[in-house]
């Protein structure tokens, strides 16, 4: 199985050149001819530890593209992760590996802690700026910015192989945004997560992106490829 899969993957990647040639096991999120809504023939290859930013006017289909990658919306084309085709695994297993964080996160239990696995409170990263007792807080006490930061941690706690972030810092002030950005980048690099990141702010795109695409009509247009 490995003998077949690995060379095929490496070939795919050398064309797009984000992986160092020595890597053998790669987390690659591959989009081939994906079409959803007005977007069509979107092809991308994001390797583990890389951040691809997507931008474009609101309503242009960025969020729908992320939803299609998470398989929350019917779509055309193929998506695969480390050689596993999206359609070949049960949908919930796919979404456990390819986790999407929506622009407005939802909280359905009364207490914050109910949304996290039991030991997550103790491992809460200091960069998020919460005290450890946040797990006992009622959800209604959280501001929108706090919800957004906790939603990122909730997604990372699932140990995803790919992350789909829909404007993850939209409700944060400038200082917090930069702290969260560098914390996210560190986690992404350390855990080798492949990331699609919808962003508006060109400063943020400049700071986090390995590649930047803008939605232009029905297709994605490369603003810059790699650095």
């Amino acid at each position, binding site marked *: 199985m490995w003998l077949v899969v690995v060379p095929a993957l490496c070939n795919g990647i050398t064309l797009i050149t984000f992986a160092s040639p020595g890597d053998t096991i790669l987390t690659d999120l591959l989009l081939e001819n994906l079409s959803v809504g007005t977007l069509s023939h979107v092809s991308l290859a994001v390797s583990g530890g890389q951040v691809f930013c997507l931008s474009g006017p609101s309503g242009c289909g960025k969020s729908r593209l992320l939803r299609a990658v998470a398989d929350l*919306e019917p779509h055309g084309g193929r998506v695969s992760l480390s050689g596993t085709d999206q359609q070949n695994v049960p*949908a*919930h297993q796919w979404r456990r*590996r390819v986790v999407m964080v*929506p622009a407005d996160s939802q909280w*359905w239990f009364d207490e914050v802690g109910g949304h996290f696995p039991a030991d997550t409170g103790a491992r809460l990263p200091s960069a998020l700026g919460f005290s450890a007792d946040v797990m006992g807080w009622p959800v209604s006490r959280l501001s929108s910015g706090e919800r957004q930061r906790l939603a990122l941690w909730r997604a990372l706690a699932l140990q995803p192989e790919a992350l789909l972030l829909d404007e993850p810092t939209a409700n944060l002030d400038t200082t917090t945004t930069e702290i969260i950005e560098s914390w996210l980048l560190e986690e992404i690099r350390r855990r080798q997560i492949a990331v699609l990141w919808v962003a508006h702010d060109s400063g943020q795109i400049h700071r986090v992106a390995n590649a930047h695409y803008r939605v232009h009509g029905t297709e994605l247009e490369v603003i810059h490829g790699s650095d």
Partner: protein
Amino acid sequence: MEVIDLAWWKLGLAALLILALAATGYFARLGMTRSLLIAALRTVIQLALIGLVLEALFASAAFYWVALMALAMLLVAGREVVARQSRRLRGWWAFSIGTGAMFVSSFTVTILALTVVIGPDPWYSPQYAIPLLGMMLGNTMTGVGLALDRLNESIWRQRAVIENRLMLGQTWQQALQDIRMDAMRSGMMPSINAMAAAGIVSLPGMMTGQILAGSPPAVAVKYQILVMLVITAGTGFGSVMAVKWGGRRLFDDRERLRLDRLVKS
């Protein structure tokens, strides 16, 4: 004990009370006159007709007539379940799921009660089968209608929560868990409340009718207990099936939430 028959003109006296109420409503501009009169008229006509049908049915007592009557009752109940949902599944799904759930639960429980518990000869003898099935269907209809209405409405309102739960890798059953509990509670609450209040707050209609018709209270009470237990069982299983099938239909084979399968009625 001899049952006192009611002459039709005596029912007219009761109807006068309704007319008096309607007149009060009309002159006080309370706006319920029209629907009150129509509903009263419907009740008289529908019950008079069903009386004729039951007379004929009891006289013939053939299995296929009983079965035909049961089928007609089921289809009317199925239509009523659809009408009680403010948002319902597109196409025939709403009718099929409601009717299917009622069919499986009401018919199974009724047949079980007839053959095992009561044991008339023959088991489908209309004097027992039709009233029992009628009470089963009436209550199951309420339960299934409430459960499906709550299910669809909650899913519609909480779509963002459901999708966020799916994004975190939950199965569709996990993402729906709270909503399913809620829908089940809605469907079961009338039966549970009725059982809790029976005999203390209210004397159930069937038992009252049987006592009025001359049965000894001890027999009437036993029948009432039987009916309440089987009604609750039928309503419960009907709601379980309706909620399970209805929830499943709102997700596709990739466990995506498909609100396009709901329409507002």
